[in-house]
């Protein structure tokens, strides 16, 4: 036996951020990967702390490309923010235009990251310093690469498919994730590029 106490038929069928399940999926990814970053950073500090000198041999990574990467990522936050606002305002024209700008920044980040590896001044199999440095860099590198691919597909869809609130919500989730990728890079940048310079 049951009694009807309400009607759900007039509820909206889309929502942004944590109103939608995709927002929770993004949050889940960020929680898992954020934990992975934090633990890898802890492993770096642990090894650094137990070493007599850091780097164990040779010189620290060249500052130039890591700093260029940091600048590119921090600068990308502006178009990222604009894309997110436009998507949440359901301003399709603006979303499309700034999605292309963001795509260019994503591409730049992937290219700079590729150059960065050549300027770490250590191989992963040289010693534990090399191993953990490469681990942090690779762990982070998978994010600009996968997010770049996601942004590629999403930007393409923006120009080729009819766009509704659900797709704009996807664009916003992608922007939130990119902000996480940038935020995660800052402590890794400090560890990889500056800790070897600051360590005794």
């Amino acid at each position, binding site marked *: 036996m049951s009694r009807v106490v309400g009607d759900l038929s007039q509820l909206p069928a889309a*929502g*942004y*951020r944590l109103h939608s399940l995709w927002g*929770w999926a993004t949050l889940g990814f960020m929680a898992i990967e954020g934990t992975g970053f934090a633990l890898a950073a802890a492993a770096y500090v642990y090894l650094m702390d*137990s070493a007599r000198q850091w780097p164990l041999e040779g010189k620290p990574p060249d500052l130039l490309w890591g700093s260029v990467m940091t600048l590119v990522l921090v600068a990308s936050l502006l178009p990222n923010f604009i894309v997110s606002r436009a998507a949440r305002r359901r301003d399709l024209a603006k979303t499309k235009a700034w999605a292309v700008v963001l795509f260019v920044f994503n591409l730049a980040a992937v290219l700079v990251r590729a150059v960065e590896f050549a300027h770490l001044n250590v191989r992963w199999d040289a010693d534990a310093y090399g191993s953990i440095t490469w681990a942090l860099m690779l762990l982070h590198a998978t994010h600009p690469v996968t997010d770049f691919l996601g942004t590629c*597909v999403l930007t393409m869809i923006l120009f080729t498919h009819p766009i509704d609130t659900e797709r704009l919500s996807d664009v916003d989730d992608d922007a939130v994730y990119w902000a996480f990728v940038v935020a995660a890079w800052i402590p890794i940048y400090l560890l990889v590029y500056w800790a070897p310079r600051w360590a005794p």
Partner: protein
Amino acid sequence: MTESHISPAAVLDAPTALPPAEHEVLARTWSTPRGLWGFLTTVDAKEIGKRYVATGLVFFILGGLLAAVMRAQLARPESGLISPDRYNQIFSMHGTTMMFLFAVPIMEAMGVYLTPLMVGARTMAFPRLNAFSYWLYLAGGVMLYVGFVLNIAPEAGWTAYPPLSGPQFSAGKRTDFWAQMITFTEFAGLAAACSMAATIFKMRAPGMTLARMPLFVWAMLTTSLMVIVAMPAVMLASSFLISDRLVGSHFYNEAEGGSVMLYQHLFWFFGHPEVYIIFLPGLGMVSEITQTFCRRAVFGYPVMVLALLATGFLAFGLWVHHMFATGLPRLGDSFYTAASMTIALPAGVQIFCWIASVWDGRPRFATPMLFVLGFVIVFVLGGLTGVMLASVPLDLQVHDTYFVVAHFHYVLIGGAVFPLLGAIHYWFPKAIGRMPSETLGRISFWLILVGFNVAFFPMHILGLMGMPRRVYTYPAEMGWGGLNLLSTLGAYVLAAGVAVFLVNLIVSARRGAPAGPNPWGASGLEWATSSPPPAYNFGLTPVVESRHPLWTSPEGLPVMTGLVHAPREVLLTTAGEARPDIRESSPKPSIWPLLTSITTTVLFIGSIFDEWFLVWASLPVLVCIIGWFWPKPSHSKTVGAPEDNVPGALA
């Protein structure tokens, strides 16, 4: 059991049932195709949950058979039944199977099946991710056992400490198979945990505020959050290990600035919470069974919830107690001793609440409740030796002895297996639609309780006598033969009990009496639909007015209407108050999860033999993921929902 096995009368009997014509439409919308294609493409959380549980039980049997072989070897001194090398593989396989392929997955599997039903949802969040999780878990387990048959099973224990597991002392591919199995199962575990947490936060029935959630759901939520924080640690630990072995990195190579202690820290940062990941769902099951069979709400609900959360939090603060014998600084020892003793408090609080519930209720000692009582006895004994082991001087004396083996079997079998078996018996009528045999249930319980204690209690004494764990034999003059023989006999009684339990499931699935929607007179929403539930779980959306909706709504269960019958649609509610928020589409059966798991399997296994697989094999994975995520038609347009008031949009 598929939709076709349910009689229409059974479906229409439940409090959330729809009229027959509407049931037909909704059932068609949510149905899974018949035959092999349906088996491979299903995204029904109930189907995946049952499959997950069944696979977990198969690994439980395999792990148990390995234990039986070990006990046969140890039954008498200087036995030559198994070679030392094979024994190493067998105890490593036993631990790995029980921890990674049985205990964690089967607890998550119970959550996969039960959570959507208990929160009143039509399915789970991310049903395809759920299917992917199952396929990946299956692939990891099969890979490990194929390796075992081919003599490439892990050999360095379930913990795989370097340097023993490193390239120097574990040549060949044995440890690589172990490390990659970790990747498989932890990926699967993380996927299931994300689905679970999102389901609990966003898909609860209207009115089911956080303060009204069933205690099992609270336990699954805490467990899922713990999985998300703990499992990346073991993935990192095993990835560093396999990288040391395959591409010459030096994370754990002391000669090149690495540290074997780093492995232990990473492993136990996962490994200790893992224990709680395994038995917190068990505690939730105990609460559900206790309240049904004592016919009263569990005593001290807010305290129970706080105890679960406190356990989840504290679990991350005591991993170092596994490393007391490694020579840590004195202050570290003291801190982790205190932390290890602290976690006994929330466990003790829960035990007292259950005892109070039994005391104040009208208990019926049916099989599930017997398993709860067995749990209380065995778990308390395990908890007490846990408090003993938290003390550094005692820990140093019995470290790596059978005392520790006894302790963790009391905690894990007591804290997880007893509740699990009780829970399987309890929810069996819901999942299968037929009642299990009470007689066989009681026989199995007593065999398991007696067999378990005869098998494991002597191990405390053996440990105090100095018998180390992980040895394939021992000399007769040590005087350990008698207790070992007794332990072996107990293990076989325990195995007989498990066999009777499984026979009960198989026989009752065919011949048990029809269950009806709520055979035990329970209070939760999972009993407000038919047994087994239809593919769509609930025809009408249940509305919750208390913690015990079926006990406290005498005028009939309140419901809401308005979700469309086609296409698939689910209701999302707000995370705290569970107010209706939005409606979303839910995926249809899909082959992409299976294809993605196959390509991922190729990547994982290939990379054991050639690291470039990580690059080349990622391309097919990528193609599958794009296929999986390719946007579907707008749900708003399909169902004609208003788009002028989208939550979260900016003006």
